[in-house]
């Protein structure tokens, strides 16, 4: 029987793999644009949501994209790798990307900083795969809102994430209850980015155009 010939197994495996793989590749190509658009939109939405005075929930997809294009400027030398949000030509805030390893997979987000270069306007995440109900709570308002008005500490850890229940200082927020691993990692991610930003800023005088 043809089934038992030794070469048949290899040929069959090869054919089956090629057949199914081509369907997968085809489907990937078909949806590629959409997937990239989704990712781009998630990023733009995150950047806009940390800016003060923007009501992101009420905005449609095209509106978000247009506002992003109008308001946000690519990072440059003087902003030290942060995006610059401009209003009427003036820099209104900086948006610093943050990323690093979470508990399950990389966490990517942005942190908004005022023009005084020390007060935080907010934090938002556009990519994370943490445990729903636990680590994933970092994307929800109660956790994120804590960051508004907090201050980047001039030396040592810029921000500290404390256990729930502890009294908080100007640069401290509470962790998500039950999500110690994610909270620990997030602290590391945020501080790595903020430390670099803070120490680069310190190298020059204040104020920028």
């Amino acid at each position: 029987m043809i089934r038992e010939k030794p070469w048949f197994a290899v040929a069959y495996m090869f054919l089956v793999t090629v057949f199914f793989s081509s369907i997968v590749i085809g489907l990937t190509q078909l949806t590629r644009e959409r997937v990239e658009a989704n990712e781009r939109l998630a990023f733009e939405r995150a950047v806009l949501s940390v800016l003060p005075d923007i009501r992101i929930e009420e905005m449609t997809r095209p509106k978000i994209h247009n506002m992003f294009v109008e308001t946000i400027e690519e990072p440059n030398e003087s902003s030290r790798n942060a995006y610059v949000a401009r209003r009427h030509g003036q820099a209104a805030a900086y948006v610093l990307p943050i990323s690093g390893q979470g508990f399950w997979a990389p966490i990517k987000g942005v942190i908004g900083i005022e023009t005084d270069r020390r007060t935080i306007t907010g934090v938002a995440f556009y990519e994370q795969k943490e445990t729903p109900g636990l680590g994933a709570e970092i994307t929800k308002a109660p956790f994120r809102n804590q960051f508004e008005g907090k201050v980047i500490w001039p030396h040592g850890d810029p921000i500290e994430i404390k256990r729930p229940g502890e009294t908080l200082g100007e640069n401290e927020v509470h962790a998500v209850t039950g999500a110690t691993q994610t909270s620990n990692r997030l602290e590391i991610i945020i501080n790595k980015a903020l430390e670099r930003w803070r120490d680069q800023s310190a190298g020059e005088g204040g104020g920028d155009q």
Partner: protein
Amino acid sequence: MNITSQMSHALVVFVSAIFTQNILLSYFLGLCPFIGVSREVKTSFGLGLAVIFVMTSTCLLNWVAYQVVLEPLGLHFFRFIMFIIIIAAFVQFVEMVIERYSPSLYQRLGIFLPLITVNCAILGASLFMVIRDYSFVATVGYGLGSGIGWFLAIMAMAGIRQRLTNERIPRGLQGPGITLIIAGLMALAFIGFTGVLQGN
């Protein structure tokens, strides 16, 4: 990353894979054989060792496959298929070698080797290794640590279950029921390790 910082990173990964991020108790992977086989310490020992060996080896093989073949060609989504094939082929190969060189060991291992192929922890470990972008040294630490962590969990479970053999357990809880409760208690205990390590 120079070699010393790579090694210290690998060490942190190794220790956390055993305790704070135990692949079974924190990530729920490898439950089926864990619940099914953990009745006896002896069998669990054999299976656990086999898992350590297969997990470490396949993590390394998959790392090579990913870096050498999939990355350069941009075929990331193929990793599912490629990893599973490598795992299945490796286990098949190991089975053949053992059968040839040590028939007594082959007899003792019996059904375990094919069982390992479908152990989700093996595939899961490789997938995590890719997501976390581990270096070669870190992959060694991760594969070895995850295997040892799984081994520890199943040994502890077998030890506890063996002690319970003469206890009166309600009919509905016998077998998987009580095993799940013990697993829950172990998971609870392991959460206590969380504060031990920072930053990997």
